């Protein structure tokens, strides 16, 4: 890490990364084709200038409040807490944001950067479609043309979000290559970017990709953790004991975790284990992957012995990715964050329980975090405080859930 900044307890801070070359320990970096390299360097310079400009932060804060609707509430889930019979469970309600997920936080930030850089066209990749909708939303507001790359398989299972993007004026391009999911959409977005570097800004949706993306996405998403910190202290008079969030690329989790990394708070990230970690149909790149290079960064990846990327599987399109953000790979390697997993079936059970107990239809992504909470919360004492990030709402997933439950709609 860059410097040996010390925390109040005298330990080196874990919040100073990445280093000047974009590395988090052995992970991160800038593994991109030469055509993109000058652009990546230009983006970093633009981001540093934005960080030093109070007007940038002021505009970001204004839009967070008046356009996104932040701060999102911190809600005590009393019925779920009682049903599980252990720890006290709070939800950070990022599913109440404009566009229905945490993705908008990052899109607002990157759009402001794109405008500072004078870019006139926006591209993005999307899996579940939440990032695509959020990108199409900010592009509409900025009056810029927007192209969203989405795997053909994801288009089929996320029809409502595809229509939303089109309503918002975006062009949705179906990606037919590879596994036809998020990984392939990202390849296609990178190919578009290489061919249109002069005018195009690529809004990456998760805390991954070449430096400085993992850093800036984390910074924009850290609004979640900063608010959560104030809100839980207000509600309980102290910091929480446990934070829990689902992880695909890991942007909602790093956004919640990062402001707490130097505190005595246990953190649990939950990967999607699909049909099970003992099958080859899962998306748990920390539990079942090895270090490798893909999409501009070195991180933990699902791959075969020959270094070919293998296809991920999850019922949740947003978690269906064979990699993970490099900061998570690093936090995993040093043991600061605990990473668990939840299967499709466990996520579906948790999804239904939350609907019935709390009147909240969650997205399938946070349903994975809820599934982990259902395992660990009952064994915890009643004064243990758990904060989970409810990072998206589930309207988009009702068709997938109906199909999984064998229900005709």
């Amino acid at each position: 890490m860059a410097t040996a900044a010390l925390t109040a307890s005298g330990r080196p801070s874990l919040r100073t990364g990445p280093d000047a070359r974009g590395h988090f320990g052995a992970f991160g970096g800038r593994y991109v084709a030469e055509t993109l390299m000058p652009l990546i360097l230009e983006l970093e310079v633009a981001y540093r200038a934005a960080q030093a400009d109070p007007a940038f932060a002021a505009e970001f804060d204004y839009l967070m409040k008046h356009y996104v609707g932040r701060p999102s509430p911190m809600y005590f889930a009393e019925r779920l807490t009682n049903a599980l019979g252990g720890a006290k469970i709070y939800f950070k309600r990022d599913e109440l944001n404009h566009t229905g997920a945490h993705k908008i936080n990052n899109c607002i930030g990157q759009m402001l950067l794109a405008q500072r850089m004078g870019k006139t066209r926006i591209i993005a990749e999307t899996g579940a479609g939440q990032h695509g909708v959020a990108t199409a939303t900010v592009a509409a507001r900025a009056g810029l043309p927007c192209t969203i790359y989405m795997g053909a398989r994801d288009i089929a299972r996320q029809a409502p979000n595809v229509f939303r993007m089109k309503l918002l004026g975006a062009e949705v391009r179906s990606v037919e290559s590879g596994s036809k999911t998020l990984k392939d959409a990202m390849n296609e977005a990178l190919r578009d970017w290489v061919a249109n570097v002069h005018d195009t800004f690529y809004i990456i949706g998760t805390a991954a990709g070449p430096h400085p993306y993992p850093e800036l996405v984390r910074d924009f998403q850290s609004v979640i953790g900063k608010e959560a910190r104030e809100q839980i202290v207000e509600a309980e008079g102290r910091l929480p004991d446990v934070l829990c969030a689902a992880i695909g690329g890991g942007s909602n989790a790093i956004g919640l975790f990062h402001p707490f990394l130097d505190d005595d708070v246990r953190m649990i990230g939950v990967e999607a284990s699909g049909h099970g970690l003992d099958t080859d149909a899962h998306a748990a790149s920390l539990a079942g992957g090895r270090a490798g290079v893909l999409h501009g960064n070195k991180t933990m990846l699902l791959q075969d012995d020959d270094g070919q990327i293998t296809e991920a599987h999850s019922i949740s399109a947003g978690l269906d990715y064979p990699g993970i953000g490099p900061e998570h790979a690093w936090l995993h390697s040093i043991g600061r964050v605990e990473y668990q997993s939840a299967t499709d079936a466990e996520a579906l059970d948790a999804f239904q329980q939350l609907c019935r107990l709390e009147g909240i239809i969650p997205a399938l992504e946070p349903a994975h975090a809820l599934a982990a909470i259902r395992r660990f919360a009952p064994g915890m004492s009643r004064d243990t405080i758990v904060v989970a990030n409810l990072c998206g709402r589930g309207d988009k997933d009702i068709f997938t859930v109906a199909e999984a439950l064998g229900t005709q709609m």
Partner: protein
Amino acid sequence: MSDRLSRRFAECAAQDRAALVTFVTAGDPDLERGPSILAALVAGGADIIELGMPFTDPMADGPAIQAGNIRSLGTGTTLRGVLAMIRAFRLTDGTTPLILMGYFNPILAYGVEAFADAAADAGLDGTIVVDLPPEEDAELAPMLRGHGLHNVRLATPTTDAKRLPTVLSGASGFVYYVAVAGVTGTASAADADIASAVARLKAATSLPVAVGFGIKTPAQAAAVGLHADGVVVGSALVSLIGAAAETRANDLPEQVEHFVRGLADAVRTARVRTAA
């Protein structure tokens, strides 16, 4: 350095012509026919062979080479298999330089030091790793150097004067100029833009400069060959292989040889015709 590569560029320069560099994906369309295609490239007049290491996620490649990667992986090509193919090629051809081009992850999975060792032993001359810019290639460059392999770097239309020294420092073998900002096999650059880019590069390095991306026909090869030390043709060849694979043509090597001969004749006569 081993130096089949410098020797070959010097021979071509002595004949006052550009070297013809041909790209195919290793193991495309399948492992049986892969070796006969390499022989056909040489028979048709290729001076240097770029061999693509197949990868599941070829982010800098257009549809033609993506399809070549899928065909090759589909028949079971591995990096180990590619190295075996190079070793077999060297049994009958000790002079045609072979450069491996691809993405970093298969090399990383193989083990960087083990790869450099095995590749040099098999008779490889160098590598072009598309997603390993100078900022990250300290993970590979010293191992290549240690085994006498060239580290070929890419320069592009976005590589400005300020950045060029970073790209050239540590480059060896030749500099590969990517003529268009884009993926392989799509748009073609204007002759004038290529000429001025090559002139700019040659003013900054004594290494040969080869130009690729968007060169599909003998006429385009001849035009680029007027200025560059090497002309790279890839997607057009890979498309031809793909079409033949689809129709199960049994004269694929002959088709490849014929196509390459057209390109080779063009680069061999380009400067003569212009002078006349």
